[in-house]
């Protein structure tokens, strides 16, 4: 495989792990807009253990999960009293505070960043992505997954039915934070350098968009979302100049055309986001779609179609 594809596969795997981390919070109805903060904690704990303490890989990566998970747990208890807009703002503020603390801390290299001595090749992030996906699929297929869905759909009724709503939310949030930390640890070792500017608010926004546009109803959603929004921009990198040439030739301009600005890719991402929210706000992959694809030949009774029409 060429270096180009190895780079894409590595970042794709890291994005999938990251998206699953946010997915676990979103699946309980909590929008976590602080993803970059958790990834930064994971990346910096792995980088610090590796660079300053000389710890090997099999210590640093579990440590990045553990540290981030614990911080997520400690943060989730107070912050999950908040709902809706307040929660979004609280998680967003958390990420900003984490980044601000890292910039001001000399031990973590401040704005300069930390070099990481150990390098991991692409199989490790891919293995991480597979493990994260399996964990999420397993959780969502158990009784806990059912409870998570109930809490997402109606927390008051779940509470009445004896579900400990707060506990479920805190547990899923902390677990998600752990996965986001894992993605950070993988990032630190795959790029052998961590820099605080990477973990900006745009990253938190992108990862939340992966999950919501992919669909938060099933564990397929984050994977599809992350894959779509990692691979499509790469395709557009080649496709956009060709499109511009085609458009220009319609207007009668031939020959050399300056390649379009890189920013057009993000404009397209924004347009896709807005259109998705108008036409399919549940995300690309819905529960219905998964059911239909997993039983392609089952004839649906009129009762089921009626239910779907209502839903």
């Amino acid at each position: 495989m060429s270096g180009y594809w190895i780079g894409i596969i590595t970042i794709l795997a890291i994005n999938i792990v990251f998206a699953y981390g946010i997915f676990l919070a979103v699946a309980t109805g909590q929008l976590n807009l602080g993803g970059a903060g958790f990834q930064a904690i994971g990346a910096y704990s792995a980088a610090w253990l590796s660079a300053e303490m000389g710890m090997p890989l099999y210590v640093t990566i579990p440590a990045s999960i553990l540290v981030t998970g614990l911080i997520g747990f400690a943060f989730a208890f107070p912050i999950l009293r908040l709902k809706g807009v307040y929660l979004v703002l609280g998680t967003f503020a958390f990420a900003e505070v984490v980044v601000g603390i890292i910039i001001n801390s000399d031990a973590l290299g401040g704005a300069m960043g930390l070099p990481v001595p150990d390098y991991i090749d692409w199989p490790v992030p891919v293995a991480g992505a597979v493990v994260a996906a399996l964990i999420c699929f397993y959780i969502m297929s158990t009784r806990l997954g059912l409870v998570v869905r109930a809490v997402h759909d109606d927390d008051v009724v779940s509470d009445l039915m004896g579900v400990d709503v707060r506990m479920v939310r805190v547990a899923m949030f902390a677990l998600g934070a752990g996965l986001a930390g894992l993605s950070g640890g993988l990032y630190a070792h795959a790029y052998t350098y961590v820099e605080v500017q990477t973990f900006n608010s745009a990253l938190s926004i992108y990862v939340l968009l992966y999950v919501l546009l992919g669909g938060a109803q099933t564990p397929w959603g984050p994977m599809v979302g992350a894959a779509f929004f990692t691979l499509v921009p790469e395709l557009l990198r080649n496709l956009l100049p060709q499109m511009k040439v085609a458009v220009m030739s319609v207007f009668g301009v031939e020959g050399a055309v300056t390649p379009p600005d890189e920013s057009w890719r993000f404009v397209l991402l924004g347009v896709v986001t807005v259109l998705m929210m108008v036409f399919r706000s549940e995300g690309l992959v819905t529960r219905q779609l998964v059911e239909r694809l997993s039983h392609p030949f089952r004839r649906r009774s009129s009762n089921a179609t009626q239910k779907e029409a209502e839903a």
Partner: protein
Amino acid sequence: MLLVQQIVNGLMVGSVYVTVAVAFTLTISILNFLNFTIPTLFMVAGMVGWGLAYFGLPFGLSGPLAWPLALAVGGLASVLCSLLVERFTFRYMRTRHGDSTEHAIPLVSSLGFLLILENLIRIFYGSDSQRFPGPSSDLTAQIGGIFVRIPQLVSFAIVMLLILGLVWMMKSTRIGRGLRAIAENPDAASILGVEPNRIVPVVFMLTGLLCGLAGALFAVNYGEVSPQMGEDIGSKAIAGMVVGGLGSLWGAVAGGIIVGLVEMLTIHFFGADAVQVAVWGALLVTLLMRPQGLFGHNAIGKGKL
């Protein structure tokens, strides 16, 4: 004396935050919608104003004193963008799905608009910061040993007048009563004859207007605009809004000024690197200790449109 000077500076910086924070709090209190395009609208006003002043206005209107006109057009651009956002985020978002993350839908599309507007500006104007050809910022007045820049003082006064007008509008006009009715209970309001489709765009127009004004004041006062200028101001305005209390106009005013003061005093005592931690820490502590903020009431998020 230096400390008093810093406090005055904080008040002046705060007036820009106040304007943006009021825009945020208006959409949140009435529509329960955290509008992430607001910092971008602010940036659009400043950048379009700069572009027109720099590349020249159409119809041969360019002259040495064309910058106020350019900024006015920039503000208009921000109002138009805001109405566009309304058309595509809010009008079709009447809860189709019984879903507890449904408040996320307009929020996510506003994130989409953030990407669109910011990158379009980058494509057409580049991503460097630009010097705005405004009035010279050396116009200072000295009051008892304290230096005050005249443009900043004027913008502070404009902002305060505008907010007084806004409070009056919300309290006493037909539109304001309709908006408050929608904020409290959209269903009852529409039964009683408030038409959401006609009155919701008013919120977005006001948002665009406030952001346009803030962008123009920022361009004049600091003499510098860039496609990134919205991020910093936006985050501080959000912090101010939360500290003051979501949904309260005077809370947003107080919060914006508090954030301005915190920023200046942090720079004074700890240096510029600590500002981010101080401002966002204030937000986080407020959310944890007193989520309704200093002046807010805890009814936000009850009424849904």
